[in-house]
């Protein structure tokens, strides 16, 4: 899933409840200089929920909801935040049309759910990756890697 862009995992957390996410979110933001994150995880793993925690850390009080239908949501935190969901995207051309590259070139925070379809583009934009894996007991492992 990570293919060739997987760097050595830098940090790893096991979280038991949603309440612990904000602490992990704060630690991730402090640990990496990257402002762009590809967020991997199966359906129901908690990608949107985790991005919600990170956005809160970035100072937005806006309602963060799933952008599956809209493809991208934009929030105003201390800095601008773009929250993508590429679940419905089949071909990269579809994204280029809505100005995907311009979003990436922006000096804004970018979070991308279901990033598999654009994986080959991410190396050019200094992306960190977040991988969320659900365990049988319902806890989640959150791994962050990147430069």
């Amino acid at each position, binding site marked *: 899933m990570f293919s060739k862009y997987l760097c050595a995992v830098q940090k790893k957390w096991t979280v038991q409840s949603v309440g612990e996410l904000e602490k992990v979110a704060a630690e991730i933001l402090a640990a990496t200089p990257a402002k762009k994150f590809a967020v991997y995880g199966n*359906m*129901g793993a*908690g990608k*949107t*929920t985790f991005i*919600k925690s990170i956005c809160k850390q970035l100072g937005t009080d*806006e*309602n*963060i*909801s*799933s952008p*599956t*239908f*809209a*493809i*991208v*949501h*934009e*929030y105003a935190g201390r800095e601008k935040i773009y929250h993508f969901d590429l679940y*419905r*995207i*089949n*071909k990269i*051309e*579809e*994204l*280029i*049309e*809505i*100005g995907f590259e311009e979003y990436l070139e922006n000096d804004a925070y970018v979070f991308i759910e279901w990033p598999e379809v654009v994986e080959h583009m991410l190396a050019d934009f200094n992306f960190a990756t977040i991988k969320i894996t659900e365990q049988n007991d319902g806890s989640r492992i959150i791994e962050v890697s990147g430069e």
Partner: protein
Amino acid sequence: MPVTILGIESSCDETSAAVLIDGQIVSNITADQSVHAKYGGVVPELASRAHQANIIPVVSATLRDANIDLKKLNAVAFTQGPGLLGALMVGTSYAKGLALALDIPLIAVHHMQAHILAHFIKYPHPQFPFLCLTVSGGHTQIVLAQDHLQMKVIGQTIDDAAGEAFDKTAKMLGLNYPGGPLIDKYAKQGNGDKFHFPEPQVPDLNFSFSGLKTSILYFLRDEIRKNENFIQENLYDLCASIQKTIAGILLKKMIKAAKHTGIREIAISGGVSANSELRRLFTENAKELGWNIYIPDLEYCTDNAAMIAITGYYKYLKKEFAEQTIIPLARIPELKSH
């Protein structure tokens, strides 16, 4: 002098134009982007290009259908947002150009406000103040409407939209995305009480469908371990049970909102209001709850330009016009209260 308004909608899938004369819709035409059916769902690239290709033919067809000359128009209303930026850009640019050429006012419309004012296209109209549940693939909101232009969001989803919950659980059942309408179809042959899923515990008037999605996922995973044909053998009952759960969550929050505000005028809009269980559940409970229920015709529930035109009309009466410098907005955080 009658007031004639052209409405233009291009926020997502549909390119649509409508003509409204003195508050009455005389024509409402939506281009059928059949090209999407081939590729499945909303395809942004195709959406923007299809809007470009469709907009002039759709407007011309609407004017012809209404038997109206461009010169008779008093204003042009268009969807400013929220929606896909590339798609919104097409309608916005066209509306600006037309208003400039005809030297008539330009009116920017909030798509979500328009979904609510769709209730004023036909009678009976809800009485103010009323509550509107707007449910679609991208939105789930409870809005308190004080008058035509004064609205306040009092509850909304904190994660997935109700339509998304339908579409994503449909996908888990192996149905093609977006599978919401298929769930409705199969549910008709199933038993909605067969399976029970935990309802989200969200405070206030907000909604959450993400937890439900996950619990259905885990439930299916566990059952498939015991019987690999579980979904195939129980498809109709699963669809009925999932649908009943989602509709039940929506009803419970509306009951809470109605109690909280003391309002019994209840409206439903958005594409998911086409769901038959949602309609049945709300209509059936309305009597006991003392509610008056309003659900527009289906053509005014899904995205359409008639709702943009009617919203434009109320803004026209208040002279709420836009400047030529206006830009489309992919996301407008709150319904503005003017």
